[in-house]
Structures are given as C-alpha cells and as structure tokens.
C-alpha cells in the first residue's frame, strides 16, 4: 500500500532534481570556461552552421562549439537579457544593431552571407506560378512572412519596387512557418529565402524571380564582449568569413557576404 503512495512523490523529486541539474549543467557548458564556444545563430543557418562548427572543431582541437538556433529577435533578446553566448550570427542587421547599441559586441559585426527571396511552390506547381506578378493572381493562396520579420520586410520591399500588391492569406512569423504551409499543400505559393527552398529538398519546387535582386538580405556575425572565450569567438567569426565557411554557406544557397 505504501509503495504506490510514495511513487508519485519519488517521481516528482526525481523530476525536480533532474531538471535543476539539467539547468545547472547547461549553464556551465555554455560559459565557455572549459573550452566551449557558445554560438547563437539564426534558424536559417542551422544546417550550414552545423557543418561549419564541425569543421571549426576539427581545426581547433580542445574547443567544443555549442550551437543554439532560434529566430534572430529571440536570440538578440536572450543575449541582451544575459544569456551566456560567445558569438551571434543574425539573419538581419536590425537585431545585430540592437546588440551593438547595447554595447554587447566585441568590435564590429561583419556581413558573412546574403540571402535572396525565392518563391516556393508545392511540387509540380499546381497553381502555375511563373513570376512574382503571378503571386497577385486572384485565387492564388500566397503565404508570406509578416512585415515585422526580415523575410516579410524583404517581400514588402520587392512588392513596393515592382508596384505589385500582394494579398497573402497568412502572414507568418518565420520562413519555417511559410515553408510548412507550402509543403503541406495548404498554400499555392510561399515567399521564402533561396536557402530555405534548397534545404526543403524535393518537398517544394522553386520559382526564381529576377525582382528578388532588389531586396538582398545580409547576415552579420560578431563576437560578443561578454563571452568567456573571446579569442576563440574571434577565430570562429574569421572562420565563418573565411574560405571554408564561405564554401559551406555557398553550398547551402547563400550568396557571398558583402564586403
């Protein structure tokens, strides 16, 4: 009789202990005191930065790179709230500028890649989208990013320059959400980045459009002043901008960083 009664309490205690221990563990690992480098990177960099980190670790024995991917705004907010990070790679200039203004950067940020918009359509392009102008066709279910996020701002800027009024059925918070709705077939077309189309593999088709060149999005990266491993952080920033980093980024569909 006593065992089932004690069980929930034991479980609770175990969960509490484990979660507290877990938090503590993460904290020390990310501090970089034992040769770890905490890199906060925009979600769209996930696959390329995973590769870059692997290559970087191979070149720098003794340093382990801990990657954390999320929306640039989320990461910037976390860093300004004191999250232990050594490097920040943002998908837009605005969020990097926030940290710059707060004096959290070690030196200047450096643009290491660019990304251009592309139209993603479900395989076979059932709605027959062939140009940016087709997105405005009545009956076309277009999903885009909201203006408040970088991909949405880019889309709005292209629309403005071309004089085409887009009427998306949904304005998502992230490219991932846009892509998800194209993959599931809910949307006829989505405005995302070229790299997103590439990372989606065969699950979406890409319709390139020349107007995209009018709204190129630059990705800045910087070492952070508050990090515990500034030398390694600077090395990582150099590595991303260097030939090996650029090669990986190009393979993922990114354009070269503006100089």
């Amino acid at each position, binding site marked *: 009789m006593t065992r089932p009664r004690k069980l929930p309490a034991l479980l609770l205690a175990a969960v509490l202990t484990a979660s507290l221990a877990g938090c503590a563990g993460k904290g020390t690992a990310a501090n970089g005191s034992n040769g770890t480098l905490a890199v906060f990177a925009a979600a769209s960099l996930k696959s390329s930065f995973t590769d870059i980190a692997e290559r970087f670790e191979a070149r720098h024995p003794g340093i382990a790179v801990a990657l954390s991917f999320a*929306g640039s*705004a989320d990461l910037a*907010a976390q860093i300004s709230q004191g999250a232990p990070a050594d490097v920040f790679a943002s998908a837009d200039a605005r969020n990097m500028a926030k940290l710059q203004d707060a004096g959290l950067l070690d030196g200047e940020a450096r643009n290491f890649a660019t990304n251009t918009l592309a139209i993603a359509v479900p395989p076979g392009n059932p709605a027959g989208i062939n140009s940016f102008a087709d997105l405005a066709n009545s009956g076309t*279910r277009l*999903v885009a990013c*909201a203006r*408040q*996020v970088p991909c949405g701002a880019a889309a709005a800027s292209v629309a403005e320059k071309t004089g085409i009024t887009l009427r*998306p*059925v*949904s*304005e*998502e*918070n992230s490219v991932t*959400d846009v892509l*998800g*709705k194209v993959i*599931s*077939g*809910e949307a006829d077309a989505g405005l995302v980045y070229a790299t997103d189309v590439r990372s989606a593999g065969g699950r979406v088709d890409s319709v390139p459009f020349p107007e995209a060149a009018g709204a190129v999005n630059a990705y800045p990266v910087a070492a952070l002043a508050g990090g515990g491993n500034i030398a390694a952080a600077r090395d990582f920033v150099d590595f991303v901008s260097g030939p090996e980093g650029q090669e990986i980024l190009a393979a993922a569909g990114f354009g070269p960083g503006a100089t």
Partner: protein
Amino acid sequence: MTGHQAYTGIPRWLYGLAALAALVVVLPLAAMAARVNWANFLPLVTSEPALAALGLSLRTSVASAGLCVVLGVPLAVVLARGRFPLSGLLRSLVLLPLVLPPVVGGIALLYTFGRQGLLGGTLEVLGLRIAFSTTAVILAQTFVALPFLVVSLEGALRTGGQRYEAVAATLGASPGTVFRRVTVPLVLPGLASGAVLSFARSLGEFGATLTFAGSLQGVTRTLPLEIYLQRETDPDAAVALSLVLVAVAVAVVALAYRRPARPAGNKATTRPTAAAGPGGGVT
C-alpha cells in the same frame, strides 16, 4: 462569524512551499507588469492591429465556447452516464488536448481539415475552405478548449449522481424531459464554469491556431498571435497587449471560480474540477 478556527491541520513548512508556488505564478506576471510602458499604454493597446486582434479573439472565443457547449454537453453526459465498451479509452482520448502541445493539435487539424487532409477534399468539393479562415481559428480553439468543458461538466454530473434523474423517470418523465428539466438545470453551475473556462482557453490558444489557421490581421491573427508578432519589433506593444490578455484571463477565471450566490440550494458541484487555468498557449 463567531470566534476563530484554531486548528487548520496545515504544517508550518507547507506555508513556505505554498508561498513559493504562488510566487512561481505571480512573480513573472508582476515582472511583466513592471515592464509596461504606461506612457504609451493606451496608444499601444488601441492601435488598429491590436484592436483587430482583440476583437477577433473575443469573437472566435465566444464562438468556440458556444461550440464547446453544444458538443461538450452531450459528450460529458455520455461519458458520465453512458455504459458502453471503451468509454474509458474515449475519455482519455477526448482529454488528450489538455496535455498535448497545441502545435501538435494544429498539425492534427491540418491533416484533418487541410486541403490535403482527411476531410479537406470533401470540404473543398462542397466549397468550404477551412484553412486560413476564421473558421479554422474557431476549430483550433474548440479542439483545445473542449476538454475543459467536458472535464468540468463530467465532474459536476458525477458528483450530482443520478438519483434526481431516477426519481424524475419514475414520475413519468421521458429521457429527453429528464435531460432538459433535471440534468441540465442541476449541472448549470458546472456547465457555466466549464463554458467560461473553455472561453478562457480559447482566448489563450496560440500554437494550434498558428500551425493550422495562419496569421492574418482581422481574419486569423488573434491576440496571442499579435503579441507573438509584435514581440519581433515592438516589445512594448507585446507587453502591453500581454497585460490586456492577462486582465481578461483574470476576469474570466474570477468569474468561473467565484463563490456563487445562487438562489437555489443546489447540491451539484459548482466548482470546475479542471484545475487548469486559461492562457496555456500564450508564449
């Protein structure tokens, strides 16, 4: 009141832990309230997108709470009173959205009502487009809120027992009459709390809506989605709108858990048995 109750049976250390528990909930809310930019509060919460989001949230939550009542009452009665095989399994399944991450709910709804979904083709033929519409928002909210109504009503039904119904039947009342004139009036307080709770849960619904319905001002962008979006660029607006949502949630919970001053001495339970509060899906 005469005198003071001297014995409570509460060990002293329990107060400490209880205070800690209260802090876990109250402190973050207070911290958020402290960050409100009061100078700009009114313009922030009365901006066009904010009002559109609030209006949409209220409209869809009323609709989904109504849908929860219409669908949840029969379900709760059948679960509480019906005798059929696998009723236990059915109850577990129906209550699943209580513990399911809302985004999972959104994905599930997508594969049901989406264009390529289970019913999507049929609905499309009928000319019904659910995805990216306000209907999708209401469906997502109903999906996550229905268990709240069912749990609180089923609790009321079980506590009340079936004796009144049995007496009514022997007095000549058909099952329909018993349901209308005895069962429903007896559980009315439980039903009211359940409806209010499901309204509150609908108001806070986020994940399933984002996944399933999308986000467009005035159509699918409810207040939680607006908050999530504002946070990208305007944290002040996000905080101000969060405070509005907290205020609405507090009012709703107070309404649901108030000590009722009922005229009738109803022995049926008046408290919802679901201890979960609203707003679970707000980031």
